[in-house]
């Protein structure tokens, strides 16, 4: 895998590693594939009640009155709560907390929670919801972000969705950011080629197969326990303590295996507060499981982005300047929106060198389900626009688009124009890999009309240097304990959401302590027993938890080496732990079973246990407001080539294959890395071709009503619709990552969409700058091109290509 993709032998220390880098099973794979794994909804506690949430049928309305008396008196109903039971604002970003667990005095989208019921069963709870009387006063609904941003008036009249943050401000603005690096106007003015284009990225949702579920248990002793499908147990822990004014030491969050999340479970949701409130009220455990419809309303998916890019290129095919204007359609609440607004601009500055860059981004509130982070948070949309922009510039300059990307490569160990620190960078190797594997040179502009190839590149963070709430503590921690049986227990704070964090720590522990993989147990997802890890988001876990695990393991390894070396009378560092043995490095015939080594260590040092932690590098970011956002300890790089077939008569685009090359630093387990790469490309392909997260308007039924909150009408690809995917792992061995590893979970999504867009253009000579590339949209573009006589294969580049790796490094 790695060796065939340009990893220089000298940099490759795989020979020292026995487990890392090998294809290995997932530690939870058998449980999940046999149905033994216990997900949140599989849990049934004695005496458990079932809850349901009453939701607003109005996109924007004042709540005048909520009468729950009839529901409360129904047989089988044990408790009802409303916004007044939890009148505390919360929100994942401490500076933009604008949500109540249940709406207090105003509802802001169709589906906003208003009251919740706990009853003996779901059917009774559903009947009880119908008995709750809510009197609303409807307010004007704001569905268009531009109109929302332009609104003037006052909050009480409904002109604004939220109270303005400051007197005189527009209450429909979550955040606006303008940042400029270098002389953008001057740079663009002096360019050989300049293009300015508009793009629209329709929003999409995560569509994780497991719906959100939570169980609350107030056990009567002051303790509050919540099981949840969350991907951020630590933040849920904090917010539960805050909203219910409970000492955090009395709150416990348990995270059973999560059936997919993709960012859709990365902040607290109404059901988690409701099960807690209802359990506090009834004294019994309460479970709420969202319907699929509720998952769509809870959303927090990818923001719709309206984007305008002005980009210049010099005579040598080097970028001169980039000017971006972006409007984010945020939906009803802030969610992660403050970060999204920054990310919309901050994460564009690699893998290409931008001499000057400016972005102006504004996030509007609208009366629709709130948007938030989805795999590739905030940067998938601009990446789509920018990589298409590059394709257009390449054609203008007569350059091959891969060549153009090579010419603009930013290099390793450098700084971006917005002062992000880049360490390892395998982007050129990624380009080389997809160019070779796809047969690019024989295909680009050379396939018959209707077939085409497209290329795109990207970068993504491996976690963020600064946590969501300011603190100096580690971002990730593990605790390891060794038993005299030889078993190694890892208490991990991280969130297993299917991506393989439990497996990853087990691989690290097996590698470091020399035990077979099956002797490692991972206990995870319980804030009572595991150290804090901040959660599964921003592609942070392998980098941070992996380093924390190495830290803990090496403390223990040192003790074991010390104890064995004493017996053998050799140097401690000459004792190797590998494959179930302690061995003498000078003569590996001299060995003892690892269990005996552990016993010697336990005899010498007492019970064997250690903690490990990781914290990010600080103060390596730019010294400007917002400079911390986007700063990561390491960046991954990706390149895709997509090959498509376009049915010219119908507009149906079929992606026949995507070649995915991803620089993950080091593949700790190449099978899992490939899984992430394929899953990412699949998800990007789905967003490119099928997914439409849209809403009815006044002319079509009802303003703000979700178009189709079901997996029948919100279409994600079936196995038959999934292109062939070929993963090409590139390993750049990051100096700070665990064994050199960087992220692989989100970066590989980014180029899918622009690569497909560029391939469509190569196939039929038609640009579709609006997502998704659905058959009607592509068909209309083809019709327009046909009408204006522009249907045909685009021109091939005139200028000679720079050979592989010929550009500056």
């Amino acid at each position, binding site marked *: 895998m790695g060796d065939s993709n340009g990893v220089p032998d000298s940099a490759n220390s795989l020979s020292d590693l026995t487990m890392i880098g090998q294809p290995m099973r997932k530690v939870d794979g058998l449980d999940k594939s046999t149905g033994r794994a216990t997900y949140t909804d599989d849990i049934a506690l004695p005496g458990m009640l079932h809850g349901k949430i009453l939701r607003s049928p109005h996109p924007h309305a004042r709540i005048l009155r909520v009468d729950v008396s009839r529901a409360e008196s129904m047989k089988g109903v044990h408790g009802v709560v409303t916004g007044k039971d939890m009148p505390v604002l919360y929100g994942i970003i401490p500076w933009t907390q604008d949500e109540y667990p249940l709406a207090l005095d105003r509802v802001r989208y169709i589906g906003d929670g208003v009251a919740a019921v706990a009853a003996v069963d779901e059917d009774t709870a559903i009947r009880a919801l119908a008995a709750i009387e809510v009197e609303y006063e409807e307010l004007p609904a704001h569905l268009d972000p531009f109109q929302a941003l332009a609104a003037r008036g006052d909050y009480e009249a409904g002109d604004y969705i939220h109270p303005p943050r400051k007197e005189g401000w527009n209450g429909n603005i979550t955040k606006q950011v303008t940042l400029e690096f270098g002389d953008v106007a001057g740079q663009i003015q002096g360019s050989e080629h300049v293009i300015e284009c508009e793009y629209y990225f329709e929003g999409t949702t995560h569509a994780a197969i497991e719906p959100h579920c939570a169980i609350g248990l107030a056990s009567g002793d002051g303790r509050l326990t919540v099981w949840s499908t969350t991907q951020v147990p630590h933040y849920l822990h904090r917010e539960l303590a805050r909203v219910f004014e409970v000492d955090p030491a009395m709150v416990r969050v348990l995270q059973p295996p999560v059936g997919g999340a993709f960012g859709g479970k990365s902040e607290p949701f109404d059901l988690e507060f409701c099960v807690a409130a209802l359990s506090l009220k009834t004294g019994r455990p309460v479970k709420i499981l969202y319907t699929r419809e509720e998952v769509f309303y809870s959303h927090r998916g990818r923001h719709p982005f309206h984007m305008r890019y002005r980009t210049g290129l010099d005579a040598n095919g080097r970028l001169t300047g980039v000017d971006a204007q972006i409007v984010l359609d945020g939906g009803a609440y802030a969610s992660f929106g403050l970060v999204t607004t920054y990310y919309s601009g901050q994460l564009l500055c690699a893998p290409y060198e931008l001499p000057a860059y400016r972005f102006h981004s504004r996030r509007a509130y609208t009366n629709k389900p709130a948007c938030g982070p989805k795999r590739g948070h905030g940067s998938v949309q601009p990446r789509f626009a920018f990589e298409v922009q590059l394709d257009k510039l390449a054609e203008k300059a007569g350059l091959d688009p891969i060549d153009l990307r090579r010419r603009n490569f930013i290099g390793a160990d450098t700084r971006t124009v917005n002062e992000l620190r880049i360490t390892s960078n395998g982007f050129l190797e990624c380009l080389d890999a997809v160019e070779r594997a796809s047969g690019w040179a024989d295909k680009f502009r050379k396939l018959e009309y209707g077939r085409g190839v497209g290329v795109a590149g990207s970068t993504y963070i491996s976690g963020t240097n600064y946590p969501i709430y300011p603190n100096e503590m580690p971002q990730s921690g593990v605790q390891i304990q060794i038993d005299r049986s030889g078993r190694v227990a890892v208490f991990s704070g991280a969130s297993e959401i299917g991506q393989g964090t439990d497996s990853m720590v087990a691989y690290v522990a097996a590698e470091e302590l020399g035990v077979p993989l099956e002797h490692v147990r991972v206990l995870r997802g319980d804030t009572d027993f595991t150290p804090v890890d901040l959660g599964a988001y921003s592609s942070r876990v392998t980098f941070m938890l992996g380093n924390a695990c190495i830290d803990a393991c090496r403390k223990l390894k040192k003790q074991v080496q010390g104890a064995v070396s004493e017996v053998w009378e050799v140097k401690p560092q000459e004792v190797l732990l590998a494959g179930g043995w302690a061995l003498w490095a000078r003569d590996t015939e001299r060995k003892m079973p690892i269990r005996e080594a552990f016993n010697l260590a336990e005899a010498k040092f007492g019970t064997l246990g250690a903690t490990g932690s990781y914290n990010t590098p600080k103060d390596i970011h730019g010294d400007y407001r917002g400079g911390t956002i986007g700063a990561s300890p390491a960046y991954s790089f990706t390149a895709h080539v997509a090959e498509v077939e376009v049915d010219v008569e119908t507009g149906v685009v079929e992606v026949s294959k995507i070649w995915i090359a991803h620089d993950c630093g080091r593949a700790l387990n190449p099978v899992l890395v490939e899984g992430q790469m394929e899953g990412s490309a699949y998800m990007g392909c789905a967003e490119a071709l099928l997914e439409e997260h849209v809403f009815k308007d006044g002319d079509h039924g009802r303003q703000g009503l979700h178009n189709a909150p079901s997996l029948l009408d919100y279409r994600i690809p079936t196995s038959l*619709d999934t292109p062939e995917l070929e993963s090409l792992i590139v390993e750049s061995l990051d100096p700070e990552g665990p064994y050199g590893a960087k992220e692989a979970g989100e970066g590989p999504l980014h180029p899918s969409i622009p690569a497909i867009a560029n391939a469509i253009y190569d196939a039929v000579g038609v640009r579709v700058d609006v997502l998704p590339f659905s058959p009607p949209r592509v068909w209309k573009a083809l019709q327009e091109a046909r009408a204006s006589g522009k249907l045909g294969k685009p021109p091939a580049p005139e200028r000679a290509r720079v050979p592989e790796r010929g550009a500056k490094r």
Partner: protein
Amino acid sequence: MLRLPPFLFHRPATLQDAVDLLREHGPAALPMAGGTDLVPNMKHRLFEPAHVISITGIPELHEVGVGEKEVTLGATSTLAALAVHPEVRQHLPSLANAAGLVAGPQIRNRATLGGNLCLDTRCTYYNQTEFWRKALGYCLKKDGTVCHVTRVGKKCVAAHSADTPPVLMTLGGQVDLRGPEGERTVPVRDFFVHDGIRNTRRQPGELVVRVRIPRPSPETRMAYLKLRQRKSIDFPLLSVAVAGEVEEDGTVRDLRGVVTALGSRPKELSGWAEMAKGERLTPELVEGLAERAFKQCHPLENIIVDTEWRRAMVPVYVRRALEQLQAV
């Protein structure tokens, strides 16, 4: 998850018992075969029958027979079974094809031919949860007074969305129905009416017993094409069934075409026989037939996919279907 409304479940062992149960409970009862249409609709509170009469335990409804003159397909034959039935594939390839294109494999294992004939019409404003429809203000087809598609008139325009009926129409299929008054036969081409609220002539107390299709002559050629955005699961955005008797040299003796998923019932394309009879099935003729189909079809926004595009796909799909006849 979405919950079913409460109901009593009956599973009679004979056709007579089933008909009696339907009569006994009247409007409070609904028959159910595979349930793949009814159950989600019940979860959406589109139907709340107090009695559900399952007809899957009635042996005679499962019968499939290929006789010298006709093919007989019992109402509860599953679509999965029809799709792979060797004789159905041999004699009625477009029917096997249509059955195999319905939904996905798991659903085809449950779904039946009779159920597909009686599939409720579908609309973006109708196939939604109770909460959603309440937020909408309901619609003409269920609990409301307004059609959100046309926004005028009192006619429901929900779309006929089943795959097998257009094929059965082109093949001259007939439906045998059994009700309290006994058995009667209706040609499939007369089975549907232009009303999205109730689009078949089956009376509430009647059951589809079987479908009979005359065994096609050796000259018969047939094809079925389905337009959808995914290669599985989705209902059709447009579907085209064609069948005709074509002589070896390409001379058309007879030709029929049906399109569906546009309005409340499958649409028989008119004037085809006149245009084609005695003519060779040339590209020019095919183009003319496709153009004629285009003029006859006017999709509505009952499905949330661009109507202009769906209309433009009519001649494309008609042509491609006819090209399959040419290719034989």
